[in-house]
Protein backbone atom coordinates (compact mmCIF):
# COMPACT_ATOMS: atom_id res chain seq x y z
CA UNK A 1 0.00 0.00 0.00
CA UNK A 2 2.82 2.35 0.89
CA UNK A 3 4.63 1.63 -2.31
CA UNK A 4 1.42 1.75 -4.26
CA UNK A 5 0.61 5.29 -3.27
CA UNK A 6 3.78 7.18 -4.07
CA UNK A 7 4.20 10.79 -2.99
CA UNK A 8 4.74 11.79 -6.57
CA UNK A 9 1.29 10.64 -7.63
CA UNK A 10 -0.20 12.42 -4.60
CA UNK A 11 1.47 15.70 -5.51
CA UNK A 12 0.25 15.51 -9.09
CA UNK A 13 -3.24 14.74 -7.84
CA UNK A 14 -3.18 17.66 -5.41
CA UNK A 15 -2.03 19.96 -8.17
CA UNK A 16 -4.90 18.78 -10.34
CA UNK A 17 -7.25 19.54 -7.45
CA UNK A 18 -5.94 23.12 -7.43
CA UNK A 19 -6.31 23.47 -11.20
CA UNK A 20 -9.79 25.12 -11.12
CA UNK A 21 -8.34 27.91 -8.98
CA UNK A 22 -6.29 29.15 -11.94
CA UNK A 23 -7.67 32.43 -13.26
CA UNK A 24 -8.17 31.32 -16.88
CA UNK A 25 -10.12 28.17 -16.02
CA UNK A 26 -13.44 29.01 -17.63
CA UNK A 27 -16.33 26.58 -17.84
CA UNK A 28 -15.09 25.52 -21.23
CA UNK A 29 -11.65 24.63 -19.93
CA UNK A 30 -13.16 22.82 -16.95
CA UNK A 31 -15.15 20.60 -19.28
CA UNK A 32 -12.04 20.01 -21.35
CA UNK A 33 -10.18 19.07 -18.18
CA UNK A 34 -13.04 16.73 -17.30
CA UNK A 35 -12.65 14.94 -20.64
CA UNK A 36 -8.88 14.84 -20.32
CA UNK A 37 -9.02 13.17 -16.90
CA UNK A 38 -11.92 10.87 -17.77
CA UNK A 39 -10.28 9.50 -20.90
CA UNK A 40 -6.97 9.40 -19.12
CA UNK A 41 -8.50 7.14 -16.48
CA UNK A 42 -10.10 4.94 -19.14
CA UNK A 43 -6.82 4.64 -21.02
CA UNK A 44 -5.22 3.69 -17.72
CA UNK A 45 -7.68 0.86 -17.17
CA UNK A 46 -7.08 -0.32 -20.73
CA UNK A 47 -3.38 -0.31 -19.92
CA UNK A 48 -4.00 -3.07 -17.37
CA UNK A 49 -4.88 -5.26 -20.33
CA UNK A 50 -2.56 -3.93 -23.01
CA UNK A 51 0.53 -3.02 -21.08
CA UNK A 52 0.53 -5.52 -18.25
CA UNK A 53 -1.20 -8.60 -19.65
CA UNK A 54 -0.38 -8.13 -23.33
CA UNK A 55 -4.00 -8.38 -24.49
CA UNK A 56 -5.25 -5.76 -26.92
CA UNK A 57 -8.94 -4.99 -26.52
CA UNK A 58 -10.55 -3.36 -29.52
CA UNK A 59 -13.87 -3.26 -27.72
CA UNK A 60 -13.41 -0.95 -24.76
CA UNK A 61 -15.74 1.60 -26.29
CA UNK A 62 -18.58 -0.86 -25.62
CA UNK A 63 -17.78 -0.92 -21.89
CA UNK A 64 -17.61 2.85 -21.89
CA UNK A 65 -20.80 3.26 -23.90
CA UNK A 66 -22.74 0.68 -21.88
CA UNK A 67 -21.79 2.50 -18.69
CA UNK A 68 -22.97 5.76 -20.22
CA UNK A 69 -26.25 4.22 -21.38
CA UNK A 70 -26.89 2.53 -18.02
CA UNK A 71 -26.52 5.85 -16.29
CA UNK A 72 -28.49 7.82 -18.90
CA UNK A 73 -31.40 5.36 -18.85
CA UNK A 74 -31.82 5.77 -15.10
CA UNK A 75 -31.43 9.56 -15.21
CA UNK A 76 -33.97 9.80 -18.03
CA UNK A 77 -36.49 7.84 -15.97
CA UNK A 78 -36.04 10.08 -12.94
CA UNK A 79 -33.67 7.99 -10.85
CA UNK A 80 -31.26 10.77 -10.04
CA UNK A 81 -28.96 9.20 -7.46
CA UNK A 82 -25.39 9.00 -8.71
CA UNK A 83 -24.89 5.86 -6.65
CA UNK A 84 -27.82 4.11 -8.29
CA UNK A 85 -26.40 5.03 -11.70
CA UNK A 86 -22.98 3.68 -10.79
CA UNK A 87 -24.41 0.48 -9.36
CA UNK A 88 -26.55 -0.11 -12.41
CA UNK A 89 -23.62 0.61 -14.73
CA UNK A 90 -21.44 -1.86 -12.82
CA UNK A 91 -24.17 -4.48 -13.08
CA UNK A 92 -24.75 -4.01 -16.82
CA UNK A 93 -21.11 -3.66 -17.80
CA UNK A 94 -20.18 -6.53 -15.49
CA UNK A 95 -22.65 -8.94 -17.08
CA UNK A 96 -21.55 -7.99 -20.58
CA UNK A 97 -17.86 -8.10 -19.68
CA UNK A 98 -18.34 -11.56 -18.17
CA UNK A 99 -19.49 -12.89 -21.54
CA UNK A 100 -16.89 -11.03 -23.58
CA UNK A 101 -13.98 -11.90 -21.34
CA UNK A 102 -15.02 -15.55 -21.14
CA UNK A 103 -14.93 -15.98 -24.92
CA UNK A 104 -12.10 -13.66 -25.83
CA UNK A 105 -9.56 -14.62 -23.18
CA UNK A 106 -9.80 -18.24 -24.23
CA UNK A 107 -7.84 -17.19 -27.30
CA UNK A 108 -4.56 -15.42 -27.83
CA UNK A 109 -3.07 -12.49 -29.65
CA UNK A 110 -4.99 -11.28 -32.64
CA UNK A 111 -8.11 -13.28 -31.76
CA UNK A 112 -8.55 -11.28 -28.56
CA UNK A 113 -8.48 -8.02 -30.49
CA UNK A 114 -10.94 -9.27 -33.10
CA UNK A 115 -13.34 -10.97 -30.70
CA UNK A 116 -13.60 -7.94 -28.43
CA UNK A 117 -14.15 -5.86 -31.55
CA UNK A 118 -16.97 -8.06 -32.85
CA UNK A 119 -18.71 -8.22 -29.46
CA UNK A 120 -18.54 -4.44 -29.21
CA UNK A 121 -20.04 -4.14 -32.68
CA UNK A 122 -22.99 -6.27 -31.55
CA UNK A 123 -23.65 -3.85 -28.70
CA UNK A 124 -23.21 -0.86 -31.00
CA UNK A 125 -25.62 -2.28 -33.58
CA UNK A 126 -28.15 -3.08 -30.88
CA UNK A 127 -28.24 0.45 -29.47
CA UNK A 128 -27.98 2.06 -32.89
CA UNK A 129 -31.24 0.44 -34.00
CA UNK A 130 -33.26 0.01 -30.81
CA UNK A 131 -35.85 2.77 -30.59
CA UNK A 132 -36.41 2.23 -26.85
CA UNK A 133 -32.96 3.72 -26.35
CA UNK A 134 -33.40 6.46 -28.92
CA UNK A 135 -31.89 4.69 -31.91
CA UNK A 136 -29.08 6.59 -33.60
CA UNK A 137 -29.87 9.77 -31.64
CA UNK A 138 -29.29 8.03 -28.34
CA UNK A 139 -30.66 9.41 -25.10
CA UNK A 140 -30.56 13.18 -25.08
CA UNK A 141 -31.01 15.84 -22.44
CA UNK A 142 -30.87 13.79 -19.27
CA UNK A 143 -30.87 15.65 -15.92
CA UNK A 144 -27.79 15.88 -13.73
CA UNK A 145 -27.28 13.14 -11.14
CA UNK A 146 -27.51 13.92 -7.42
CA UNK A 147 -24.61 13.12 -5.12
CA UNK A 148 -26.46 13.19 -1.79
CA UNK A 149 -30.00 14.40 -1.26
CA UNK A 150 -30.58 17.37 -3.53
CA UNK A 151 -26.90 18.13 -4.15
CA UNK A 152 -26.82 18.03 -7.96
CA UNK A 153 -23.63 17.57 -9.93
CA UNK A 154 -24.77 20.22 -12.35
CA UNK A 155 -21.77 22.53 -12.71
CA UNK A 156 -18.54 21.86 -14.60
CA UNK A 157 -16.64 22.43 -11.34
CA UNK A 158 -18.54 19.74 -9.42
CA UNK A 159 -18.19 17.33 -12.33
CA UNK A 160 -14.50 18.05 -12.50
CA UNK A 161 -13.99 17.12 -8.86
CA UNK A 162 -16.10 14.01 -9.34
CA UNK A 163 -13.90 12.81 -12.17
CA UNK A 164 -10.81 13.73 -10.20
CA UNK A 165 -11.94 11.50 -7.36
CA UNK A 166 -12.70 8.74 -9.85
CA UNK A 167 -9.26 9.08 -11.41
CA UNK A 168 -7.59 9.00 -8.00
CA UNK A 169 -9.45 5.89 -6.85
CA UNK A 170 -8.95 4.14 -10.19
CA UNK A 171 -5.24 4.92 -10.12
CA UNK A 172 -4.96 3.62 -6.59
CA UNK A 173 -6.79 0.44 -7.51
CA UNK A 174 -4.64 -0.15 -10.58
CA UNK A 175 -1.43 0.62 -8.69
CA UNK A 176 -2.30 -1.78 -5.88
CA UNK A 177 -3.25 -4.38 -8.46
CA UNK A 178 -0.07 -4.25 -10.51
CA UNK A 179 2.24 -4.25 -7.51
CA UNK A 180 0.45 -7.22 -5.98
CA UNK A 181 1.08 -10.88 -6.65
CA UNK A 182 -1.83 -10.81 -9.07
CA UNK A 183 -0.10 -8.11 -11.12
CA UNK A 184 3.12 -10.11 -11.21
CA UNK A 185 1.24 -13.07 -12.63
CA UNK A 186 -0.24 -10.83 -15.30
CA UNK A 187 3.23 -9.71 -16.36
CA UNK A 188 4.33 -13.35 -16.37
CA UNK A 189 1.44 -14.15 -18.70
CA UNK A 190 2.46 -11.32 -20.98
CA UNK A 191 6.06 -12.45 -21.06
CA UNK A 192 5.42 -16.15 -21.52
CA UNK A 193 1.93 -17.51 -21.26
CA UNK A 194 2.93 -21.16 -21.55
CA UNK A 195 5.48 -20.88 -18.79
CA UNK A 196 2.95 -19.20 -16.52
CA UNK A 197 0.63 -22.11 -17.19
CA UNK A 198 3.35 -24.67 -16.46
CA UNK A 199 4.00 -22.93 -13.16
CA UNK A 200 0.49 -23.89 -12.22
CA UNK A 201 -1.39 -20.65 -12.74
CA UNK A 202 -4.86 -20.86 -14.21
CA UNK A 203 -3.99 -18.42 -16.95
CA UNK A 204 -7.44 -17.95 -18.33
CA UNK A 205 -8.87 -17.14 -14.91
CA UNK A 206 -6.25 -14.42 -14.45
CA UNK A 207 -6.90 -13.02 -17.90
CA UNK A 208 -10.64 -13.02 -17.30
CA UNK A 209 -10.23 -11.32 -13.95
CA UNK A 210 -8.08 -8.50 -15.29
CA UNK A 211 -10.41 -8.09 -18.27
CA UNK A 212 -13.36 -7.74 -15.87
CA UNK A 213 -11.53 -5.21 -13.70
CA UNK A 214 -10.50 -3.15 -16.69
CA UNK A 215 -14.03 -3.29 -18.13
CA UNK A 216 -15.65 -2.25 -14.84
CA UNK A 217 -13.30 0.69 -14.36
CA UNK A 218 -14.08 1.79 -17.92
CA UNK A 219 -17.81 1.28 -17.34
CA UNK A 220 -17.75 3.45 -14.22
CA UNK A 221 -16.01 6.12 -16.26
CA UNK A 222 -18.76 5.80 -18.84
CA UNK A 223 -21.41 6.16 -16.15
CA UNK A 224 -19.94 9.57 -15.23
CA UNK A 225 -20.14 10.79 -18.81
CA UNK A 226 -23.88 11.64 -19.09
CA UNK A 227 -23.52 13.84 -16.01
CA UNK A 228 -21.17 16.04 -18.01
CA UNK A 229 -22.67 15.80 -21.49
CA UNK A 230 -26.38 15.09 -20.72
CA UNK A 231 -26.45 12.43 -23.42
CA UNK A 232 -25.47 8.89 -24.34
CA UNK A 233 -25.27 8.06 -28.04
CA UNK A 234 -24.33 4.90 -29.92
CA UNK A 235 -21.38 6.78 -31.39
CA UNK A 236 -19.68 6.47 -28.00
CA UNK A 237 -19.33 2.75 -28.75
CA UNK A 238 -18.04 2.90 -32.31
CA UNK A 239 -15.02 0.65 -32.73
CA UNK A 240 -13.01 3.63 -33.85
CA UNK A 241 -13.49 4.99 -30.32
CA UNK A 242 -11.90 1.80 -29.02
CA UNK A 243 -9.07 2.57 -31.40
CA UNK A 244 -8.74 6.03 -29.88
CA UNK A 245 -8.42 4.49 -26.42
CA UNK A 246 -5.59 2.36 -27.78
CA UNK A 247 -3.95 5.43 -29.27
CA UNK A 248 -4.09 7.12 -25.85
CA UNK A 249 -2.34 4.17 -24.23
CA UNK A 250 0.30 4.10 -26.95
CA UNK A 251 0.93 7.85 -26.74
CA UNK A 252 1.44 7.64 -23.00
CA UNK A 253 3.45 4.46 -22.86
CA UNK A 254 2.45 0.82 -22.42
CA UNK A 255 2.61 -0.70 -18.98
CA UNK A 256 3.15 2.47 -16.97
CA UNK A 257 -0.36 3.38 -15.68
CA UNK A 258 0.62 7.04 -15.30
CA UNK A 259 1.60 7.16 -18.97
CA UNK A 260 -1.84 6.40 -20.39
CA UNK A 261 -3.36 9.06 -18.10
CA UNK A 262 -0.98 11.54 -19.68
CA UNK A 263 -1.68 10.02 -23.09
CA UNK A 264 -5.45 10.35 -22.67
CA UNK A 265 -5.17 13.94 -21.54
CA UNK A 266 -2.73 14.69 -24.36
CA UNK A 267 -5.08 13.12 -26.90
CA UNK A 268 -8.09 15.15 -25.72
CA UNK A 269 -6.13 18.40 -25.68
CA UNK A 270 -4.51 17.68 -29.04
CA UNK A 271 -7.87 16.93 -30.61
CA UNK A 272 -9.33 20.12 -29.15
CA UNK A 273 -6.40 22.31 -30.18
CA UNK A 274 -5.89 20.91 -33.66
CA UNK A 275 -9.58 20.76 -34.52
CA UNK A 276 -9.98 24.41 -33.65
CA UNK A 277 -7.50 25.29 -36.40
CA UNK A 278 -8.05 22.67 -39.09
CA UNK A 279 -10.74 20.11 -39.81
CA UNK A 280 -8.31 17.33 -40.72
CA UNK A 281 -7.18 16.58 -37.20
CA UNK A 282 -7.62 12.84 -37.77
CA UNK A 283 -4.64 13.02 -40.11
CA UNK A 284 -2.63 14.66 -37.35
CA UNK A 285 -3.73 12.04 -34.82
CA UNK A 286 -3.02 9.22 -37.25
CA UNK A 287 0.44 10.60 -37.95
CA UNK A 288 1.14 11.04 -34.23
CA UNK A 289 0.19 7.39 -33.68
CA UNK A 290 2.38 6.20 -36.58
CA UNK A 291 5.27 8.31 -35.33
CA UNK A 292 4.96 6.93 -31.82
CA UNK A 293 4.76 3.30 -32.95
CA UNK A 294 7.80 3.75 -35.19
CA UNK A 295 10.09 5.92 -33.12
CA UNK A 296 8.83 6.06 -29.53
CA UNK A 297 7.39 2.63 -28.72
CA UNK A 298 7.60 3.52 -25.03
CA UNK A 299 5.40 6.57 -25.48
CA UNK A 300 5.70 9.98 -23.88
CA UNK A 301 6.92 8.56 -20.59
CA UNK A 302 9.74 6.89 -22.52
CA UNK A 303 11.28 10.34 -22.90
CA UNK A 304 12.25 10.19 -19.23
CA UNK A 305 14.81 7.56 -19.98
CA UNK A 306 16.53 9.96 -22.33
CA UNK A 307 16.62 12.68 -19.71
CA UNK A 308 18.70 10.87 -17.18
CA UNK A 309 19.26 7.69 -15.22
CA UNK A 310 16.45 8.38 -12.77
CA UNK A 311 15.10 5.31 -11.08
CA UNK A 312 11.56 4.67 -12.18
CA UNK A 313 9.43 1.59 -12.15
CA UNK A 314 8.06 1.28 -15.61
CA UNK A 315 6.56 -2.15 -15.81
CA UNK A 316 6.01 -3.82 -12.49
Amino acid at each position, binding site marked *: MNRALSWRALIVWAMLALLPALPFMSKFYLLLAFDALLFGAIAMSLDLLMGYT*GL*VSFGHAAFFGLGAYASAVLLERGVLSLWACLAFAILVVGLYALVVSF*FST*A*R*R*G*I*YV*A*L*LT*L*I*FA*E*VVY*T*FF*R*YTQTFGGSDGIQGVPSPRLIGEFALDTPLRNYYLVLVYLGLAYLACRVLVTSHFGRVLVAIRENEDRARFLGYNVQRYKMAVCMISALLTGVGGALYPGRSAFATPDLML*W*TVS*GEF*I*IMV*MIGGLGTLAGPVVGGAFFVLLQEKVSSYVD*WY*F*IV*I*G*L*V*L*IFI*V*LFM*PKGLLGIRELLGPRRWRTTA
Partner: protein
Amino acid sequence: MDYVVAVLLPQLLHGLVFGAALGLLALGLTVIFGLLGVMNFAHGELYMLGAYAGIAVMGLTHSFWLALLVAPVAVGAIGAVTEVTTLRPLYRREPLYGLILTFGLALVFREGARQIWGGDMRRILPPFTGSTPLLGMTYPNYRLFLLAASSVLLLAIWLFFTRTRAGILVRAAVQDAEMLDGLGVNVPRVFTLTFAGSAALAALAGLLLAPVFTVYPQMGVEMILLAFIVVILGGMGSMGGSVIAAFVIGLAQSLLTLWMNPQRVAIAIFAIMIVVLIVRPRGFFGREGVLE
Protein backbone atom coordinates in the same frame (compact mmCIF):
# COMPACT_ATOMS: atom_id res chain seq x y z
CA MET B 1 -42.37 -21.55 -57.60
CA ASP B 2 -43.06 -17.91 -58.27
CA TYR B 3 -41.54 -17.11 -54.91
CA VAL B 4 -38.41 -19.02 -55.80
CA VAL B 5 -37.93 -17.30 -59.14
CA ALA B 6 -38.99 -13.82 -58.14
CA VAL B 7 -37.49 -13.55 -54.66
CA LEU B 8 -35.19 -16.35 -53.68
CA LEU B 9 -33.14 -16.71 -56.86
CA PRO B 10 -32.19 -13.03 -57.31
CA GLN B 11 -31.27 -12.82 -53.66
CA LEU B 12 -29.15 -15.95 -54.00
CA LEU B 13 -27.32 -14.40 -56.93
CA HIS B 14 -26.86 -11.15 -55.01
CA GLY B 15 -25.25 -13.20 -52.29
CA LEU B 16 -22.89 -14.89 -54.70
CA VAL B 17 -21.91 -11.57 -56.26
CA PHE B 18 -21.25 -9.97 -52.90
CA GLY B 19 -19.48 -13.07 -51.61
CA ALA B 20 -17.09 -13.15 -54.56
CA ALA B 21 -16.14 -9.49 -54.09
CA LEU B 22 -15.80 -10.00 -50.35
CA GLY B 23 -13.53 -12.93 -51.11
CA LEU B 24 -11.15 -10.65 -53.02
CA LEU B 25 -10.96 -8.36 -50.03
CA ALA B 26 -10.55 -11.12 -47.46
CA LEU B 27 -7.89 -12.95 -49.46
CA GLY B 28 -5.54 -9.98 -49.33
CA LEU B 29 -6.21 -9.60 -45.64
CA THR B 30 -5.52 -13.24 -44.83
CA VAL B 31 -2.31 -13.40 -46.89
CA ILE B 32 -0.94 -10.30 -45.15
CA PHE B 33 -1.90 -11.76 -41.82
CA GLY B 34 -0.10 -14.98 -42.69
CA LEU B 35 3.03 -13.13 -43.78
CA LEU B 36 3.41 -10.33 -41.27
CA GLY B 37 1.17 -11.51 -38.44
CA VAL B 38 -0.57 -8.15 -38.78
CA MET B 39 -4.30 -7.75 -39.13
CA ASN B 40 -4.33 -4.87 -41.57
CA PHE B 41 -6.81 -2.31 -40.26
CA ALA B 42 -6.05 -0.10 -43.26
CA HIS B 43 -7.28 -2.73 -45.70
CA GLY B 44 -10.77 -1.19 -45.82
CA GLU B 45 -9.21 2.17 -46.63
CA LEU B 46 -7.28 0.64 -49.54
CA TYR B 47 -10.63 -0.69 -50.75
CA MET B 48 -12.07 2.81 -50.43
CA LEU B 49 -9.06 4.38 -52.17
CA GLY B 50 -9.57 1.97 -55.07
CA ALA B 51 -13.07 3.31 -55.63
CA TYR B 52 -11.93 6.94 -55.41
CA ALA B 53 -8.91 6.34 -57.65
CA GLY B 54 -11.34 4.83 -60.14
CA ILE B 55 -13.56 7.93 -59.94
CA ALA B 56 -10.52 10.14 -60.50
CA VAL B 57 -9.43 8.17 -63.57
CA MET B 58 -12.97 8.11 -64.93
CA GLY B 59 -13.18 11.88 -64.47
CA LEU B 60 -10.17 12.25 -66.75
CA THR B 61 -10.79 9.57 -69.31
CA HIS B 62 -14.49 8.66 -69.01
CA SER B 63 -13.50 5.02 -69.28
CA PHE B 64 -14.49 2.53 -66.61
CA TRP B 65 -12.19 -0.08 -68.10
CA LEU B 66 -9.14 2.14 -67.99
CA ALA B 67 -10.01 2.97 -64.38
CA LEU B 68 -10.23 -0.74 -63.62
CA LEU B 69 -6.67 -1.03 -64.87
CA VAL B 70 -5.13 2.11 -63.38
CA ALA B 71 -6.77 2.22 -59.93
CA PRO B 72 -5.34 -1.11 -58.66
CA VAL B 73 -1.88 -0.19 -59.94
CA ALA B 74 -2.02 3.20 -58.23
CA VAL B 75 -3.30 1.80 -54.94
CA GLY B 76 -0.81 -1.06 -55.18
CA ALA B 77 1.95 1.53 -55.45
CA ILE B 78 0.59 3.34 -52.39
CA GLY B 79 0.57 0.00 -50.60
CA ALA B 80 4.18 -0.72 -51.54
CA VAL B 81 5.38 2.70 -50.38
CA THR B 82 3.42 2.36 -47.14
CA GLU B 83 4.85 -1.09 -46.47
CA VAL B 84 8.46 -0.03 -47.03
CA THR B 85 8.23 3.15 -44.98
CA THR B 86 6.07 2.06 -42.04
CA LEU B 87 5.70 -1.71 -41.71
CA ARG B 88 9.20 -2.78 -42.66
CA PRO B 89 10.82 -1.16 -39.60
CA LEU B 90 8.44 -3.19 -37.42
CA TYR B 91 9.32 -6.70 -38.68
CA ARG B 92 11.31 -7.54 -35.59
CA ARG B 93 8.82 -6.15 -33.13
CA GLU B 94 5.68 -7.70 -31.76
CA PRO B 95 2.81 -7.91 -34.29
CA LEU B 96 0.75 -5.75 -31.92
CA TYR B 97 2.67 -2.68 -33.01
CA GLY B 98 1.88 -3.44 -36.62
CA LEU B 99 -1.81 -3.75 -35.82
CA ILE B 100 -1.85 -0.40 -34.05
CA LEU B 101 0.20 1.19 -36.82
CA THR B 102 -2.29 0.13 -39.50
CA PHE B 103 -5.04 1.71 -37.40
CA GLY B 104 -3.12 5.00 -37.66
CA LEU B 105 -2.69 4.51 -41.39
CA ALA B 106 -6.43 3.94 -41.73
CA LEU B 107 -7.15 7.25 -39.98
CA VAL B 108 -4.78 9.11 -42.30
CA PHE B 109 -6.14 7.51 -45.49
CA ARG B 110 -9.78 8.00 -44.51
CA GLU B 111 -9.38 11.64 -43.55
CA GLY B 112 -7.11 12.23 -46.55
CA ALA B 113 -9.80 10.94 -48.90
CA ARG B 114 -12.38 13.14 -47.20
CA GLN B 115 -10.15 16.17 -47.67
CA ILE B 116 -9.45 15.43 -51.34
CA TRP B 117 -12.84 14.21 -52.53
CA GLY B 118 -15.23 15.51 -49.90
CA GLY B 119 -17.42 13.58 -47.52
CA ASP B 120 -20.57 13.18 -49.59
CA MET B 121 -21.80 9.97 -51.15
CA ARG B 122 -21.01 9.37 -54.78
CA ARG B 123 -22.24 6.94 -57.35
CA ILE B 124 -20.47 5.42 -60.31
CA LEU B 125 -22.60 4.46 -63.28
CA PRO B 126 -22.02 0.89 -64.38
CA PRO B 127 -20.13 0.66 -67.70
CA PHE B 128 -23.06 -1.15 -69.27
CA THR B 129 -26.72 -1.43 -68.37
CA GLY B 130 -29.53 -3.74 -69.29
CA SER B 131 -30.30 -7.17 -67.99
CA THR B 132 -30.28 -10.72 -69.16
CA PRO B 133 -33.09 -13.26 -68.87
CA LEU B 134 -31.80 -16.04 -66.66
CA LEU B 135 -33.63 -19.05 -65.23
CA GLY B 136 -36.99 -17.39 -65.65
CA MET B 137 -35.99 -14.01 -64.18
CA THR B 138 -33.99 -11.09 -65.44
CA TYR B 139 -30.72 -10.14 -63.80
CA PRO B 140 -28.66 -6.95 -64.29
CA ASN B 141 -25.77 -7.44 -66.68
CA TYR B 142 -23.31 -5.55 -64.54
CA ARG B 143 -23.85 -7.84 -61.57
CA LEU B 144 -23.31 -10.86 -63.79
CA PHE B 145 -20.09 -9.29 -65.01
CA LEU B 146 -19.10 -8.61 -61.39
CA LEU B 147 -19.64 -12.24 -60.50
CA ALA B 148 -17.70 -13.45 -63.52
CA ALA B 149 -14.83 -11.01 -63.02
CA SER B 150 -14.46 -11.82 -59.30
CA SER B 151 -14.61 -15.55 -59.96
CA VAL B 152 -11.98 -15.33 -62.69
CA LEU B 153 -9.79 -13.27 -60.38
CA LEU B 154 -10.19 -15.76 -57.54
CA LEU B 155 -9.27 -18.57 -59.93
CA ALA B 156 -6.27 -16.61 -61.20
CA ILE B 157 -5.08 -16.05 -57.64
CA TRP B 158 -5.43 -19.73 -56.91
CA LEU B 159 -3.37 -20.56 -60.01
CA PHE B 160 -0.83 -17.94 -58.98
CA PHE B 161 -0.35 -19.51 -55.56
CA THR B 162 -0.20 -23.09 -56.81
CA ARG B 163 1.43 -22.89 -60.25
CA THR B 164 3.91 -20.01 -60.25
CA ARG B 165 7.27 -19.70 -58.58
CA ALA B 166 6.35 -16.29 -57.13
CA GLY B 167 3.19 -17.70 -55.60
CA ILE B 168 5.05 -20.61 -54.06
CA LEU B 169 7.59 -18.18 -52.61
CA VAL B 170 4.79 -16.26 -50.91
CA ARG B 171 3.37 -19.46 -49.44
CA ALA B 172 6.82 -20.47 -48.31
CA ALA B 173 7.21 -17.10 -46.59
CA VAL B 174 3.91 -17.68 -44.78
CA GLN B 175 5.18 -21.05 -43.57
CA ASP B 176 8.65 -20.00 -42.46
CA ALA B 177 10.08 -16.64 -43.49
CA GLU B 178 13.35 -17.21 -41.66
CA MET B 179 14.06 -20.44 -43.52
CA LEU B 180 13.26 -18.76 -46.83
CA ASP B 181 15.67 -15.98 -45.95
CA GLY B 182 18.31 -18.61 -45.22
CA LEU B 183 17.75 -20.09 -48.66
CA GLY B 184 18.77 -16.80 -50.21
CA VAL B 185 15.39 -15.32 -51.09
CA ASN B 186 14.96 -11.59 -50.64
CA VAL B 187 12.19 -11.91 -48.07
CA PRO B 188 11.52 -8.20 -47.48
CA ARG B 189 10.88 -7.85 -51.19
CA VAL B 190 8.41 -10.73 -51.07
CA PHE B 191 6.65 -8.97 -48.19
CA THR B 192 6.50 -5.63 -49.99
CA LEU B 193 5.26 -7.06 -53.27
CA THR B 194 2.66 -9.18 -51.50
CA PHE B 195 1.43 -6.15 -49.59
CA ALA B 196 1.20 -4.20 -52.86
CA GLY B 197 -0.68 -7.08 -54.44
CA SER B 198 -3.12 -7.29 -51.57
CA ALA B 199 -3.67 -3.52 -51.77
CA ALA B 200 -4.32 -3.80 -55.51
CA LEU B 201 -6.85 -6.58 -54.90
CA ALA B 202 -8.64 -4.48 -52.30
CA ALA B 203 -8.71 -1.55 -54.73
CA LEU B 204 -10.08 -3.77 -57.46
CA ALA B 205 -12.84 -5.01 -55.16
CA GLY B 206 -13.63 -1.41 -54.21
CA LEU B 207 -13.95 -0.26 -57.80
CA LEU B 208 -15.86 -3.34 -58.96
CA LEU B 209 -18.42 -2.91 -56.18
CA ALA B 210 -18.66 0.87 -56.59
CA PRO B 211 -21.44 0.83 -59.25
CA VAL B 212 -23.50 -1.44 -56.98
CA PHE B 213 -22.86 0.39 -53.70
CA THR B 214 -22.09 4.03 -52.98
CA VAL B 215 -18.66 5.59 -52.59
CA TYR B 216 -17.85 7.62 -49.49
CA PRO B 217 -14.80 7.96 -47.21
CA GLN B 218 -16.24 5.67 -44.51
CA MET B 219 -17.14 2.86 -46.89
CA GLY B 220 -14.12 0.81 -45.87
CA VAL B 221 -15.04 0.81 -42.19
CA GLU B 222 -18.13 -1.32 -42.70
CA MET B 223 -16.53 -3.65 -45.20
CA ILE B 224 -13.45 -4.28 -43.11
CA LEU B 225 -15.55 -5.64 -40.25
CA LEU B 226 -17.19 -8.13 -42.59
CA ALA B 227 -13.80 -9.01 -44.04
CA PHE B 228 -12.44 -9.61 -40.51
CA ILE B 229 -15.36 -11.92 -39.79
CA VAL B 230 -14.69 -13.75 -43.04
CA VAL B 231 -11.02 -14.21 -42.20
CA ILE B 232 -11.80 -15.47 -38.70
CA LEU B 233 -14.51 -17.80 -39.97
CA GLY B 234 -12.31 -19.23 -42.69
CA GLY B 235 -9.49 -19.86 -40.28
CA MET B 236 -6.65 -17.39 -39.82
CA GLY B 237 -4.20 -17.55 -42.70
CA SER B 238 -6.18 -20.12 -44.68
CA MET B 239 -6.77 -18.75 -48.17
CA GLY B 240 -9.25 -21.38 -49.28
CA GLY B 241 -11.11 -20.97 -46.01
CA SER B 242 -11.37 -17.23 -46.56
CA VAL B 243 -12.94 -17.64 -49.99
CA ILE B 244 -15.45 -20.20 -48.74
CA ALA B 245 -16.29 -18.09 -45.71
CA ALA B 246 -16.73 -15.06 -47.97
CA PHE B 247 -19.40 -16.90 -49.95
CA VAL B 248 -21.04 -18.13 -46.73
CA ILE B 249 -21.23 -14.60 -45.37
CA GLY B 250 -22.32 -13.14 -48.70
CA LEU B 251 -25.13 -15.66 -49.05
CA ALA B 252 -26.15 -15.44 -45.39
CA GLN B 253 -26.30 -11.66 -45.60
CA SER B 254 -28.46 -11.52 -48.71
CA LEU B 255 -30.75 -14.40 -47.77
CA LEU B 256 -31.33 -13.17 -44.21
CA THR B 257 -32.47 -9.77 -45.51
CA LEU B 258 -35.51 -11.59 -46.87
CA TRP B 259 -36.76 -12.30 -43.38
CA MET B 260 -35.16 -9.69 -41.15
CA ASN B 261 -34.50 -5.98 -41.14
CA PRO B 262 -30.89 -4.96 -41.84
CA GLN B 263 -29.82 -4.39 -38.23
CA ARG B 264 -31.02 -7.87 -37.22
CA VAL B 265 -29.01 -9.24 -40.14
CA ALA B 266 -25.88 -7.52 -38.85
CA ILE B 267 -26.40 -9.04 -35.42
CA ALA B 268 -27.21 -12.44 -36.97
CA ILE B 269 -23.88 -12.39 -38.85
CA PHE B 270 -22.07 -11.68 -35.59
CA ALA B 271 -24.02 -14.50 -33.97
CA ILE B 272 -23.03 -16.91 -36.76
CA MET B 273 -19.40 -16.04 -36.17
CA ILE B 274 -19.61 -16.46 -32.42
CA VAL B 275 -21.35 -19.83 -32.77
CA VAL B 276 -18.79 -21.07 -35.31
CA LEU B 277 -15.97 -20.01 -33.02
CA ILE B 278 -17.49 -21.93 -30.13
CA VAL B 279 -17.97 -25.08 -32.21
CA ARG B 280 -14.77 -24.76 -34.23
CA PRO B 281 -12.43 -22.39 -32.42
CA ARG B 282 -10.08 -22.09 -35.39
CA GLY B 283 -12.71 -21.46 -38.03
CA PHE B 284 -13.44 -23.70 -41.01
CA PHE B 285 -9.88 -24.51 -42.04
CA GLY B 286 -7.61 -23.11 -39.35
CA ARG B 287 -5.10 -25.64 -38.10
CA GLU B 288 -3.86 -25.96 -34.57
CA GLY B 289 -0.62 -24.17 -33.87
CA VAL B 290 -0.65 -22.20 -37.11
CA LEU B 291 -0.13 -18.50 -36.41
CA GLU B 292 -0.98 -18.73 -32.75
